Each structure stands twice: as structure tokens, then as C-alpha cells.
């Protein structure tokens, strides 16, 4: 089943819909992804990369709805969203 909106009674223990991968070499710390993530999954961390740029980091991956806006707005092509094919399966098991 494919849902376009998460139901309110979604299982809180369900797996996130997507996993975010940040390329630490490409990231230049502009902060676009952290500012415009609708679920506040990303934030600007304290870690620096080898060029001295402050890196974006993942705060809470379980909130991710896999909307893909971070991937779209990243000017450095550094963010990859990996869709979780297991997420909707665990949804169906949850008794409503």
C-alpha cells in the first residue's frame, strides 16, 4: 500500500520512510537543507570536514518522511535519500 500522507495512528516504532546520506567531502555547510527540512531531521552539526566547512548532520532520522526536498535543494549534490522499502511493510503489520 502506498500512502501519500502519514496517518495519525502511525506506529511510532515503525521504520523511517527514508535514510539520508550526506557526502562529507562535497558538503560546504550552506545550511539550506537544515533550514528547509519540514520535519527538522537535519541540523547544522559541530563537525568540520577536511576543508573546514561546518557539516550538516542528522538530528532525528526516525521523523523523515522521504519528501526529498533536502536532496533537491542541496547545491552541492551531497545529499542522497535512500528510500526504505521495508517501511510500508511494517506499517501494514500494525493493528489499527
Amino acid at each position, binding site marked *: 500500500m502506498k500512502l501519500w500522507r502519514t496517518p495519525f495512528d502511525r506506529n511510532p516504532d515503525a*521504520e523511517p520512510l527514508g*535514510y539520508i546520506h550526506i557526502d562529507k*567531502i*562535497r558538503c*560546504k*555547510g*550552506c*545550511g*539550506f537543507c537544515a*533550514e*528547509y527540512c519540514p520535519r527538522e531531521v537535519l541540523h547544522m552539526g559541530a563537525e568540520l570536514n577536511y576543508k573546514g*566547512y561546518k557539516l550538516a548532520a542528522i538530528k532525528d532520522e526516525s521523523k523523515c518522511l522521504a519528501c*526529498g*526536498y533536502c*536532496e*533537491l*535543494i*542541496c*547545491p*552541492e*549534490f*551531497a545529499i*542522497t*535519500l*535512500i*528510500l*526504505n*522499502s*521495508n517501511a510500508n511493510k511494517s506499517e501494514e503489520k500494525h493493528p489499527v
Partner: protein
Amino acid sequence: MQIDDVTSYERSIAKYLRQDRLPHIWCAGCGIGPVLNCFLRAIDSAELNPDLVSVVSGIGCSGRVAGYVKLDSFHTTHGRAIPFATGLKLANPQLKTVVFSGDGDLVAIGGNHLIHAARRNIDMTVICINNFTYGMTGGQVGPTAPLDVRTATTPYGNFEPPFNLPWLLHASGASYIARWTVLHLHQLELTIVEALRRPGFSFIEVISPCPAIYGRMNKEPEGLDSLRNYIKRSVIKHGAGPRETAIDHKGPIVVGKFLDIDQPTLQDHLIGVAAKAKKPVKK
């Protein structure tokens, strides 16, 4: 954890992007990256044959786009992106030619080529990344810089009235005109898809931040400051008249699809004349 082996990134843009050239040269907070991302996604969603898409770019920061795409591309001299694309299109009418360039390149030195390409209604898509300045050469005042902005050559404020690009193109005879900012990415992608699929001269202006050169002089020292500014100032108004689309220093930025009309392209006129020319002359 079981994950899909094909991510959305790999599905849509990785095959068109020269990953070995990354990280690219654009500054942190530059708006060209998201626009390129949208363009590559648009090629994918328009279901074009990548062998028949060619990207031509001029000089400037956005001129580097030609080097980062895995399509047929050419990096032309200053302002001459549109003439080169015109030649490509006339030699091989099957090609989808896309001109990817900045405001300094397209409107200042290539301004004459821009209005004449619009007048002829050549079938091509022009993506103009408008950052109101010459970024690569050190921030001189550009032809689209609004009045009163500070640049490297106008430290007390710009005193030259700027171009209103949608009005210029409307008057020149383009068939498709749209404007978005770097934040309206889903709309921009749909607009590029629409422009790539339709015949005629399509012009898409994208308002983009330039934090290191333009923003530094105008109280927007980071890309995020410009984006927050766009959220406050942008007004979506489809079909807005060309007089309404002027950009002030502090006033609203009208965005949307301004013009979408069907008119015969240069190729149609050429075919008509060629058919006439082939008729035997009665003696």
C-alpha cells in the same frame, strides 16, 4: 535494514552528472546547484532522449554548468551562447538545445542575441540565472541590478535603472516566459519540463542568491539570508502583466508563469519558404 538498491538520486540525476568533477567550484550558498539539479530532473521527467539534448553555456559562474553535465555540451565565449545554440538547432532540428547562462552573459553582452532569438522564435529553452551582478569577475554592477543596491563598482548605490526581463522578452516575441526563485524548486522543475516539451522560444528566469559577491554588499552575507528574503518578498502571480514584474531593491518579487502562447517557430517558416523555393518556375 533493507533498502532499495536504486535511490531516487541515482534514478534521476546521477546518470546526467559528471560525478568525477565534483565538488564543484561554486561558493557555499550559491543557487546554481539547485537549478542544475532541477534541470537534470526535468530531463528525466520529460523523458527526453539524452543523446538529443545539448547544453550550451556562456561565460560566468553558470557557464560551468556545461562542464558538469554528461550531455553534449559547449562552453562558448562571452554572450555567444545563443548564436551557438541557434547554429546547432538549424543544423540538426531534432536537437533540444538548452542555453544555461547568467544575467550578465545573456542580457548584457549577449543582449542583442537574446532579443533576436526571441524575435525569430527559435525552438530553444533559455535558463537565465539572475543574481543581479557579475559574480565571477568581482561583482560589477549588472544590467539587472535594481536601483540603490551596492556593488563593487557602485559603492554608493546603483544609479542605472535595470532591465525588466519578462517585459523585454514579451516585447521581443518569446512564446514562453516564467520566473521562479531558487526556493520554488518543484515549480521550477515542472516549468522546465513544460518548456522542454513545447516548441518555440522559452525563457525561464531564476532569481538566485550570490552570497559571496552580491549578498556581502547588500546585507545578505549568506545564501540563507537571501532565501529568507525571497520567502518574504516573492508573490506567485501567474499570467502577470509585464509591467508588474519589475524587481525593486526591497519590493515584492513577482514569480510564476507569465506567458504561454503558440506561434510558428523559425523552423516552420523555413519549411514554408523551402517548399516555395522548390516549385519549378513557369516560363
